[in-house]
């Protein structure tokens, strides 16, 4: 009798455990993530409705949307917005061309494809601040190695101040960004290329397709989903870029590289206006959110079409 009871009890508790088990297994991760994203975000939204200037620690009056109004109507915001848009466009285009080109090289049967496969991940694997720093020294206007090489070959007669000229500074940032982010896109495109059945190319060749036509009518259309992923991922990375600017240009010269996230940082740590900075950070979050929603829509229509 007692034994049967024990067995029944054991079964019941086993059933409860089985019921609870899924919740227990996601709980720790779920709590850590929820605690450190939801709460800080709510807190950030709250801060953005109050005046919060770090030099006046005792007065935080509620000012509604004034932080947002002040930020949006400032010259710096318009500047940051256009610089960010330009930067994002250049970087996304650059990473797409670089990624696709490198992926096709890696996928080709040339002998150098193998060493390339070994080193391609290296820029991706290192901290962005360090990547920016290496490029900053290479581009240095007084003793940078790039100037040194160009000078030794007689391509320039005097050293070029790459990071002190607004246009060259932007170009330098874009080039360093492509160096850091391009390899990931290359790996993504390579994965896509390897999924394309070889028979497709063979069939097209029998039908008389040449190199460009194969690329245009087989490779590109079949890479569309991955291209979309890369575009969205890279747009987000470009809008949120901070580390590179922090080490390479500090937003200068003359705000020519002051992107939105740098502007948010400068509002907090240079102008010491926490309310402005956080309002900006939330605006950035909203912009990325809109982009992600657009992306999800695009992906959905993509799935319907195929």
């Amino acid at each position: 009798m007692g034994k049967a009871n024990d067995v029944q009890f054991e079964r019941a508790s086993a059933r409860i455990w089985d019921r609870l088990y899924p919740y227990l297994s996601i709980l720790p991760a779920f709590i850590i993530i929820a605690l450190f994203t939801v709460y800080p975000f709510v807190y950030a939204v709250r801060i953005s409705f109050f005046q919060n200037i770090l030099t006046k620690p005792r007065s935080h009056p509620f000012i509604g949307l004034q932080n947002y109004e002040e930020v949006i109507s400032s010259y710096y915001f318009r500047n940051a917005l256009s610089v960010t848009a330009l930067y994002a466009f250049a970087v996304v285009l650059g990473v797409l061309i670089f990624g696709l080109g490198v992926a096709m090289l890696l996928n080709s049967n040339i002998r150098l494809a193998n060493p390339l496969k070994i080193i391609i991940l290296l820029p991706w694997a290192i901290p962005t601040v360090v990547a920016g720093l290496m490029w900053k020294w290479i581009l240095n206007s007084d003793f940078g190695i790039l100037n040194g090489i160009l000078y030794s070959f007689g391509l320039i007669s005097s050293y070029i101040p790459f990071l002190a000229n607004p246009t060259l500074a932007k170009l330098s940032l874009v080039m360093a960004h492509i160096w850091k982010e391009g390899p990931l896109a290359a790996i993504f495109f390579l994965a896509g290329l390897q999924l394309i059945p070889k028979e497709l190319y063979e069939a097209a060749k029998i039908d008389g397709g040449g190199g460009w036509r194969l690329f245009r009518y087989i490779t590109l259309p079949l890479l569309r989903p991955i291209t979309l992923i890369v575009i969205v991922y890279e747009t987000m990375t470009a809008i949120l870029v901070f580390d590179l600017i922090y080490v390479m240009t500090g937003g200068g010269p003359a705000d020519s590289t002051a992107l939105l996230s740098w502007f948010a940082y400068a509002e907090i740590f240079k102008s010491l206006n926490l309310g402005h900075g956080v309002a900006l950070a939330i605006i950035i979050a909203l912009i990325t959110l809109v982009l992600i929603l657009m992306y999800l829509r695009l992906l959905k229509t993509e799935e319907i079409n195929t």
Partner: protein
Amino acid sequence: MNKKVRRSLNTVLLNILAILLIVYIIGPFVWMAAASIQGENELLKKPPNLIPENPTLDNYNYVFTGKIPTAYEVKGQIRSRISQEARLIGPAVKNSFIVAISVMTINLFFGTPAAYAFARLRFRFKNPSYSFILASRLMPAMAIAIPYYVIIRTFHLLDTYLSLIMVNSVITLPFTIWFLTMYISNIPREMEDAGLVDGCTPFQALTRIVVPMMAPGLVAAGAFAFMTSYNEFLFARFLTQTIDTQTGPVIIASIAGNPDVSYSLISVCVTLGLIPPLILAISMRKWLTEGLSASVTYH
């Protein structure tokens, strides 16, 4: 004949492109390493030597033992460019390691059961909680960095490993869970079903049957978590204050921020700081590439 010529011309062109690409990719690394074994006076020459003329390990010696490199004793002026801070790179890399290894452990320890539940088990709120975890990754760091700083300060946890480990776990866990969920979904179910019929609990099925089969996925997920937290800069910049917790990227950025810094000592710091991720990237290349490829081609 014409076709043959064109084909070989094509190959030559592709090889030239590949060489240019190799130079672009590893050039900065090679130059950093080359600069780290030169004296400051040689680096400041116009133009500098591409190949070091008098290679020396003095700069490394200074970072490890504090012995002033002879190249600096020549000119009094240059001597002032030696920044004491360069000697902090050793402890900083140690801090990065402690944080990264803890984060990796937390990821595998909590991420694996969560991924298993999402991939295999049925329970209420499964889809919303999964979507929430994935969506949390889309929050821009800048938006939560300041509030996070304020919260950490209120709990007196600034400048502790704990705060860094927490924030890096939050950053990495969503990717780990998503990645491992995909990985488990792609493992055939038969073995587990057999185990469950034989009276295994889901937890036993996970630890005894699934975990051994998903070892490559765990290695890749662990490597991603390690690298992300080893490289993280923004939060580490806010949350650390002294060398007790400052990580490699924070120290390197801070040394470089000093306008008078010695170029060769920075190169030493960068070279030393990059050794761990570069070794990891090369030795785990296969798993990392497969993991990254899977993240865009699996569904």
